[in-house]
């Protein structure tokens, strides 16, 4: 069995990527970077989907990953358009400056 990879390693990798994504989301102040962190999180989730598809020998997991990708694409289109608008109106991408909800 030499050379084979334990399944849980994939899940561990996914957990690491997920946590890094969350970290990026929490610690970064640039909206675009935060957005990319979300993509990282989604990728991590996709990895678990694929891994479970391998484990259960079912293609369904791949489809979930596929749908996640589609949603990510839609989200990127709308999200980036929002970012463009925000930048046009506020002249900043710093999330800490976008706090008009406060007060």
């Amino acid at each position: 069995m030499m050379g084979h990879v334990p399944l849980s390693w994939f899940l561990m990798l996914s957990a690491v990527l997920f946590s890094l994504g969350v970290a990026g989301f929490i610690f970064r102040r640039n909206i675009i970077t935060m957005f990319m962190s979300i993509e990282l999180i989604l990728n991590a989730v996709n990895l678990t989907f694929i891994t479970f598809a391998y484990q259960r020998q079912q293609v369904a997991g791949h489809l979930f990953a596929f749908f996640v990708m589609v949603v990510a694409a839609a989200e990127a289109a709308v999200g980036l358009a929002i970012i463009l608008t925000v930048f046009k109106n506020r002249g900043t991408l710093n999330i800490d400056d976008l706090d008009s909800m406060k007060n």
Partner: protein
Amino acid sequence: MQLWLIPILPLAGFLINGLFGRRFSKGLVNTFAIGSVVLAFLWVLKTLFGLGGMNAVYTEHYFTWIQSGALTVGFDFSVDRLTAVMLLVVTGVGSLIHIYAIGYMAHEGGYYRFFAFLNLFMFFMLTLVLAANYLVLFVGWEGVGLCSYLLIGFYFDKKFATDAGNKAFIVNRIGDFGFSLAMFLIFRQFGSLDFAHVFAQAPAAPVGLLTLIGVLLMFGACGKSAQIPLYVWLPDAMAGPTPVSALIHAATMVTAGVYMTARSWVIYTHAPIAMDVIAYIGIATALVAATIGLAQNDIKKVFAYSTVSQLGYMFVGVGCGAFSAGIYHLMTHAFFKALLFLGAGAVIHSLSGEQDMRKMGGLRDKIPWTFGVMACASLAIAGFPLTSGAMSKEAILLAANHHAPWIYWVGVFTAGMTAFYVFRALFMTFFGKYRGEAHPHESPPVMIVPLVILALLSLGGGFIKVPDFLRSVFPAVEAPESGALTAVAIAAGLLGIALAYLMYVYKPGLPDAVANGAKGLYTLVYNKYFVDEIYDAAVVTPLVEGSRVVLWKGVDAGLIDGAVNGIGARAKGIGQVLRLAQSGNTRSYATWVAFGSVLLIFLMAVLGGLR
């Protein structure tokens, strides 16, 4: 037999003209609009010849439209002899009116829009006629209502036109409410809406229920066919262009109610009370509308009330069990009333839009063709012997006499009044001295030719013996032929003509004297018995006031707003506390989310949610 082609052709015309008509020349619009209707007419002819005797109902199933629980409604068309008569009337008269409209609408704006709506109307009307179940019929029913609304409000920049459209639409909704209830009951009782199925089982159904269904159906018919109490929309509907009045509000759509009740004859023959209701409503409408018609000065209003009155006649026929007589009158009425309206349209057209008969007169020499055809139509409606109107009216009156003699006598009286006011209109328009300022001119041939064809049909159309043709569809009525009764009816008509001649040609001062002499009665009739005002006071105002005071001030502002505001106030109070957690900083929110997910995973993993 490709029945679907019949309604689809006008629909195609509507789509082409409606979508692209704005860019088309008038010739192209005409080609599509008239071409589609004439083709539909030809296809009807081909279909009917192909079907031969039509002793059985021929049905075509296209697709299952609705399938929900026990309810299965197919999109089905069927043809029997009743449908055949209706198809011929609708497409035939429809074609003539379409051709006429080329000339009439030549100088109007929205040319393509007019023809697109007219084609759409034809589509829905044919769907209504061809329907093989109540729901498809209802589709056509609502569709023609929609087109009626659109075409009444054709001059949408004039307030009275849009108001009239709204009125027609709303009043029709009231009737449709009854129709819908009737359909629910039919489905509840018979488990189907197919004509064949329903009529096969109707004899076994309880009489009370059938009576209720019949009355509700009649309520729907009252709305569409302008019977008491819902007739008020039809006179106002004359705000639309005259071809519309002729096609929709005289020849075809308003007869849909008659068609529908005749179609449901099985239900009615097993519910005598419902039949009586129809007969009473019909005769009352005929009488009331005729009296109102006596005092109208707008030429189209006169014919509008005349239409209401004649529709009443048809219902008398149906209500007295003489369904075929009702349909017979429906057909002849389509000829002469369409002609009357189109003739009136020609008069109005020649006078550049003048509708008040007091500003007409003496047009006999100026527009002789129009006068000729109008005279033919007037003779027909007045029941001059051997004209189509005389024959169909006679059939109805004979049946009425058989059913209840008093209906016959009221009918005869009404016939006299009909003759009077129609000839009053004729005399005021064409005899005497011209009292207006416009310069009358004869209409173009494209308008005259359809008028002449309709005039021939008005005079001779009675020889198309519809009752004989429909003998296999409806139960026979054993009304004995009676020379005396016929003579009385004809005499009443002639008397009315004579009276009109006396008052409006021989001694023109007489009408004012009569009006002054019976001032109260005249005011009452002139103001249409104040029915609109009564409806306003009895229905509209209480509804508005009730909505204002009870629903708005009481329920909405007091109860609902109070509750909502109360909830809002509580939420605000809680929010005052919770807002301390809202820093407005996105990243701290994110931290909280992460914190929450950690907590959740902790609960799942450590506290044993996992395997």
